[in-house]
């Protein structure tokens, strides 16, 4: 026993032969009717309800047919389909067989009678084999009448899935990406800090020696407008080019350059080199930030067929997020611009803090380290 145990140790790690247990559900929704095709592995059914009646190690079509009622009862009691919140009545119509890459499957065709027209969402509740094999998964393909399809995975941790019954409209898709864009500017603290570093001095004027409060709101507004617009134009250009795979840069380089841009923008507040032409800085580094946005978009995946729509939606989302930050920042900064609080604590202290954080990021990203 000791020998065997030790042997297994070094053998088990690299060996994968089959795939684990899966069932395949294809749910097709058309108007008030839903049809389901459910492929369940014969190996799994043998373990759960026993199919090999004569015990000869072979499952024949005759043996499978003989167990048909039991199989249907077993499977259907472990599946619910609901339309809106109301459960649909499921009835098995056919029993067929098919092969997947790991062997033969029983194919159950099931009709779902939903009292309500499945206009809202279609829910699937699933617990087949979870009691016998927690690694079992139900792999769902959800098809709408229009031909669009979505997939999902059912597991003991996530035994329920919901799908939108109607077609995903272009508007929905646009709105989804718009939301992602807004979300990203808020989650992407490095972009926010870059923008803030450029905006902090907007309510001030550099005399050549020190920062003083700027006079009119009009000048301040135009200054902010120029900075934000050039940042936006620049990152829209590179975001689009990268998302359409025209240019691609290694992410470590991009992330390091973004950290560097934040650092330089913050240092410029402490030791001003560029003042009036900060819009040009915003443009230059905006190009770099665009590549950063693009990597998020790549992770999300762009829908084929609605590429441009998603791209525009995401971009507008980023702008909306930015605008929210600017409209929160500007009036407060303008009101406080003459105070010690603003000039020492927020402007100088804030710039120092941003520079420190950015320096740490830069080292971490450039050398692939974890400092914090």
């Amino acid at each position, binding site marked *: 026993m*000791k*020998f*065997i*145990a*030790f*042997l*297994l*140790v*070094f*053998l*088990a*790690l*690299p*060996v*994968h*032969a*089959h*795939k*684990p*247990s*899966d069932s*395949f559900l*294809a749910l097709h929704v058309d108007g008030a009717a839903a049809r389901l*095709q459910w*492929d369940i592995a*014969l*190996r*799994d059914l*043998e*373990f759960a309800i026993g199919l090999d009646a004569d*015990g000869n*190690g*072979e*499952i*024949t*079509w*005759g043996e*499978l047919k003989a167990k048909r009622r039991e199989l249907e009862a077993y499977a259907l009691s472990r599946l619910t389909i609901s339309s809106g919140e109301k459960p649909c009545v499921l009835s098995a119509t*056919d029993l*067929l*067989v*098919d*092969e*997947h*890459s*790991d*062997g*033969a499957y029983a194919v159950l065709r099931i009709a779902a009678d939903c009292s309500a027209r499945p206009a809202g969402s279609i829910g699937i509740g699933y617990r087949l084999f979870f*009691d*016998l*094999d*927690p*690694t079992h*998964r139900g*792999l*769902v*393909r959800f*098809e709408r009448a229009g031909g669009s399809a979505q997939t999902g*995975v059912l597991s003991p941790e996530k035994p329920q899935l919901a799908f939108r019954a109607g077609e995903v409209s272009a508007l929905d898709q646009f709105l989804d990406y718009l939301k992602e864009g807004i979300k990203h500017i808020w989650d992407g603290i490095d972009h926010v800090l870059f923008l803030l570093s450029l905006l902090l001095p907007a309510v001030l004027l550099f005399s050549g020696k020190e920062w003083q409060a700027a006079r009119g709101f009009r000048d301040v507004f135009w200054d902010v407008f120029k900075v934000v617009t050039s940042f936006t134009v620049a990152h829209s250009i590179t975001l689009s080019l990268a998302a359409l795979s025209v240019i691609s840069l*290694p992410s470590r380089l991009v992330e390091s350059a973004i950290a560097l841009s934040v650092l330089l923008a913050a240092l410029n507040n402490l030791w001003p080199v560029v003042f009036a032409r900060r819009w040009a800085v915003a443009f230059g580094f905006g190009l770099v930030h665009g590549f950063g946005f693009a990597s998020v978009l790549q992770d999300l995946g762009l829908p084929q067929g609605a590429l441009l729509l998603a791209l525009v939606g995401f971009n507008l989302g980023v702008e909306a997020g930015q605008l929210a930050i600017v409209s929160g920042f500007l009036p407060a900064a303008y009101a406080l611009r003459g105070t010690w609080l603003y000039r020492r604590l927020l402007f100088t202290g804030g710039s120092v803090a941003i520079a420190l954080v950015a320096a740490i990021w830069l080292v971490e990203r450039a050398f692939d380290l974890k400092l914090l």
Partner: protein
Amino acid sequence: MQQCFSPGVGLLFKGFVAAAGVVGALSVAAAPQLPKDDSIVLERLPSKAADPAAAELKRLRAAASAAPESVDAAARLARRYFELAMAEGDPRYVGYAEAVLRRWPETASTPAELLVLQGLLRQYRHDFDRGLVDFDLALSSDPANTEALAWRAAILMVRADYAGARRECERLAEHSTALHATACAAYIEATTGQARRAHERLAAALAARSDVPPEFQVWVLTRLAEMAWRYGDPATADRHFRAALALGLDDNFLLAAYADFLLEQKRAGEVAALLKRWVRSDTLLLRLALAERALGLPEAAGHTRTLGERFAEASLRGERLHLQEEARYLLDLKGDAPAALAAAAENYQTQREPRDALVLLEAALAAREPAAAAPALKWLDETGFEGTRIREVAGKLKGMK
């Protein structure tokens, strides 16, 4: 692909599945059949009800369900399932074992026997962190548990934590035979630039024993072959591989290692003959397809498609357990260097054995991205790992910078 249907229907399915690939796997447009005759065999099970092994399994299942609280009954059944998963290469049994052990929490209050099994299941699913913790918990109540120690060493080896693995081997040596202790230590030595010395020690330790069970002999001989291969003595490596094969045990790992060796020695014809009947195993089908491709055989295309389909089905589950094989498949069979590099780099985050490093280096070279190979180059420098091919690839990459 198994052909359990009548030949005609089987071929039809084979053609369909191969063509439809991943979409077919989930699509309603699949072509389910209504078999014409009751006597058509749909599926062949791994065993018959009357086989002694099946009868024993039935007995163990009955015992466990009659006494669901019994640690002993659960441990026996779960271990039997795990052994079946290894022998047949079917992960379903691992799932069954998980269901058996579910009622015991992974805490120190659970008996060591069950914690070791829980650790086994964790590592099987590549949850190495949790696996290490389970073995540690087992050792806290049973410090002489050699299985837990050996597993900890194995996981640390996969992670390229050689100092950690060495510590586990030293602990193991206090409780095990000299051959086990030598095997554990030599395995590390051979990976850290001392393959020749490791080979000498392990060969001597094996020769000193006459009562080694054949399963363990296969393991030792396979490792000896790898060591000789590593320090550049292919004739000795071949002799060990053949000695291991002569023991007559079907061993997935031995076959994969020998196939890799033969492919590198440009002996693809022998690989095709060796692996002909192993198409059900992903690891071996990959090597078979590589050999067929090298030989220009027509079977290469079909086997490449089948592999692609299996990777696609696995990814539908959202699992990434085959990344090393997938990277190799993308690189050598599909010629898609960027995708291979992505898979190899992701794989290298969790698995850092020499094979994992080699595929990362080769993919980086093919994709002309030397920076992506940095972790594997660093590993090579730090360990002094031998091996002509890996050194050659590393040299080319360094020249590219």
